[in-house]
């Protein structure tokens, strides 16, 4: 590949200035801030002043203090649950879309994606009012006779964060699963049918395995978005719904310990990178190529 045709116009004698800018701007406004942030995690704070001397104390504290690791694991479990519930709901919906024909299929897909366009903050607020004591969920449950009186089970705790994040993130699970299902060659399904397999057998042995890369991508997307979110737990979590993101944020506010907050961010970034890499690794569609 010595020259794709467009290497040439790209080579419209770029002046050295452009070359410098093309490298300098991303490095300056993206890499430098993240690098400084990383370096900050090795500093410490003394009486409200940042001490610019390298130390591992922040990381030692993260791993040894009885407060942080439990919250860290609890948050990871919470976000894995969000991913699992989202996929359980998204998979049947995505599958249903692929059974539709042509225009209907994409119209319905669009319909399920539109809620993503709505302001994130407003959605959190609306969901909180649905989950609240006077909210629609309690009214419905009481009306159906499942609860005898409105419950505070659904708001200002971990359940609330779980439900809210799931509602917000389902579309991110639908899309990759739909794309994986859509790519499964029809001939495989017909062959399976011809060979006498039942629909259930065809689903379990052809469709499901071939759609797993989509499920992996969906899980990775939802998990990463859930664990990086601070707004939802802050708004619906109340006092008991304490997540890692909130602890992290508090280091920059009330706790005022930027270096320790930076160390917590590094821990969060590691989890996110691992999740993205796993999603990449298992999200590749290998089996479906004929």
């Amino acid at each position, binding site marked *: 590949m010595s020259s794709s045709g467009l*290497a040439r116009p790209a080579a419209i004698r770029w002046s050295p200035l452009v070359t410098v800018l093309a490298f300098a701007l991303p490095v300056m*406004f*993206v890499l430098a801030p993240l690098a400084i942030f990383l370096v900050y995690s090795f500093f410490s704070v003394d009486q409200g002043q940042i001490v610019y001397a390298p130390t591992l104390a922040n990381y030692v504290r993260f791993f040894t203090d009885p407060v942080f690791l439990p919250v860290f694991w609890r948050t990871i479990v919470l976000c894995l649950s969000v991913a699992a519930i989202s996929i359980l*709901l998204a998979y049947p919906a995505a599958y249903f879309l692929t059974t539709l024909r042509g225009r209907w299929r994409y119209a319905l897909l669009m319909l*399920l994606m539109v809620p993503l366009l709505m302001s994130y903050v407003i959605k959190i607020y*609306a969901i909180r009012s649905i989950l609240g004591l006077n909210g629609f969920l309690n009214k419905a449950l009481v009306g159906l006779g499942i609860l005898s009186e409105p419950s505070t089970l659904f708001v200002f705790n971990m359940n609330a964060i779980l439900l809210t994040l799931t*509602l917000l993130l389902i579309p991110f699970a639908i899309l990759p699963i739909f794309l994986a299902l859509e790519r499964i060659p029809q001939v495989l399904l017909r062959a399976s049918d011809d060979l006498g397999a039942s629909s259930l057998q065809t689903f379990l042995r052809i469709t499901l395995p071939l759609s797993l890369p989509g499920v992996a991508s969906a899980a990775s997307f939802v998990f990463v978005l859930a664990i990086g979110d601070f707004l939802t737990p802050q708004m619906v979590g109340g006092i008991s719904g304490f997540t890692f993101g909130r602890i992290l944020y508090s280091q920059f506010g009330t706790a005022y310990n930027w270096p320790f907050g930076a160390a917590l961010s590094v821990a969060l970034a590691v989890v996110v990178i691992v999740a993205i890499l796993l999603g990449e690794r298992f999200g590749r569609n290998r089996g479906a190529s004929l």
Partner: protein
Amino acid sequence: MIAPPRLSTILLAATTVLVAVLLYSPLFVPIVSSFFPVARGEVDWSSPTVETYVALAGNDEILSALRTTLVVGFCTVVLSVVGGTLLALYYHGRRAGRSALQFIIFLPFLMPPIISGLALLIFFREIGLERSLLTVVIGHTAFVLAIVYRTVLTRLQSMSRTLVEASYDLGATKWQTFWRIILPNLSSAMVGGAILAFALSFDETMITILVTGTQTTLPVRLWAMMRLGFSPDINALVALILMFTVLLCALAARFLVPRQIATQRA
């Protein structure tokens, strides 16, 4: 797809309806409350009203936040479209350093916004840049640049090289080829990328909370108001914004979906 048996079809359809209801319920709350009075979770269906929309016109606090959001969005779009297009042109067909720099450009998009925001916050403090709308625009641009870059690069890669070769054969200079062949072919991708960039900037909350100065954008304003509860006119604004964004994204889809006839003719 082979038609599954009926019971499973019904179950699948039911789940899809359930998902749609779950996704749309948070949208209906503010839209319904923008037209009907709501008290203690009960909607008063008997008295529809547009008072909330009238009240909105007099809510200066919200309107000025909306203006700030539009200004930030505009600057972000200009910077990210110019920057993203230049970077795409520059890196296209170039090998040395490309994947590393591409990775850097994508970092703010992949990292949780709380990390990007905090990193920028510390960075601005270290270089002594006062928090203001400028820092917000820088933050938003870093965040959306990857989208514009990706969109334009995809279009560049799908462009037939014969177009450029023909242009050179016919004696055009490099700049003529750029202005008359490459740029017109990229324009719809640039517009599509610009719309996506604007939509992302319009709703960006976390980075903005961290790097903003005294002036705030609409999502941050709403975030601050949420603790106390919204006044009804916010619902009117939300309904309007929803309509606006749906329109915007329909436009983006229009520009990003390749128009086969046009490319064939070109």
